[in-house]
């Protein structure tokens, strides 16, 4: 009887090792490829979303002229009289639809809600106009 139990245990262990040992490398490789594709796409997508946002033109609330958003943000960061930036939330809602995003300009943050830590973060420096003390300002976009 002891011999029979040994055979059963050996059979089960053998089957599991052979089965998983054969399947696992394929599953693991494919999971790695899939994760890589997803991360590359996410990174490229969030990076492109930030470029699209910065190159969009909007009316500057202070001068009533049409300017690229990057210039409006530059003025927001460098001058005391802050231009209206409420359009950014609307633009990011259009770009990210129902997905998570968080856009930070200095201490002001525009966001759709809490983003997970593993989401993509893109940080860029933009040129600040009329400011000899600080030439660059940092902006950050977290998205999925």
């Amino acid at each position, binding site marked *: 009887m002891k*011999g*029979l139990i040994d*055979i*059963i245990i050996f*059979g089960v262990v*053998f*089957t599991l090792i*052979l*089965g998983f040992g*054969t*399947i696992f490398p*394929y*599953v693991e490789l*494919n999971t790695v*490829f*899939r994760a890589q*594709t997803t991360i*590359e*796409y996410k990174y*490229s*997508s969030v990076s*492109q*979303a930030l*470029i*699209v*946002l910065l*190159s*969009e*033109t909007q009316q500057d609330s202070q001068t009533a002229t*049409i300017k*690229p958003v990057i210039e409006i943000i530059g003025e927001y960061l460098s001058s005391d009289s802050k231009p209206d930036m409420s359009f950014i939330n609307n*633009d990011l809602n*259009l*770009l990210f639809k129902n997905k998570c995003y968080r856009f930070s300009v200095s201490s002001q943050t525009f966001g759709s809600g809490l983003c997970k830590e593993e989401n993509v973060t893109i940080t860029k420096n933009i040129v600040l106009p009329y400011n000899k003390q600080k030439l660059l300002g940092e902006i950050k976009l977290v998205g999925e």
Partner: protein
Amino acid sequence: MKNKGIAYSVVNAIMAFLIIGMTIFLIFFHIGGYFSIKETVQQNENERKAIALGELLSTTDLLVYSDGYTVHKGVLAVEKLTNLQDKQSKIFDAINFTDINYYFKITDLETDESWSFGSPQVSRTTQLLRIVYTPYKKDFPVSIKYTDGKMNIGMLSVTVEVLTAI
């Protein structure tokens, strides 16, 4: 002595059943695994194709704004989008994915104006098979550049359809 012989036969029979059971289990386990992996790899491949097509379209000078020296990736010139149907064959000739169907839609998210080319396939049933087109969609943020210098935010949607016969 006779009882001992019977006991050995029972053990042998159980062992035989066990080995046959294990073999059958192993065969089905591998077949199931093979189809599961094949399906996942195929899905991954289709996603890659959709991403490759999106990257291609957001850099081709057939659609993208160019100042004569530089092609601006992701900046679609609106004057190049107006006659898309005429360019369709030229763009499609540059793509060599023969086993899939694809269509593209570019939307100005601020004005809701859109431009599209290619056409979605409709699933159908033949006498023997049901022909199904499974879509994989990927979105790419783009800028839409108007002739007066205005830049709007937009989205390039790439849908890849894969033919499956059930």
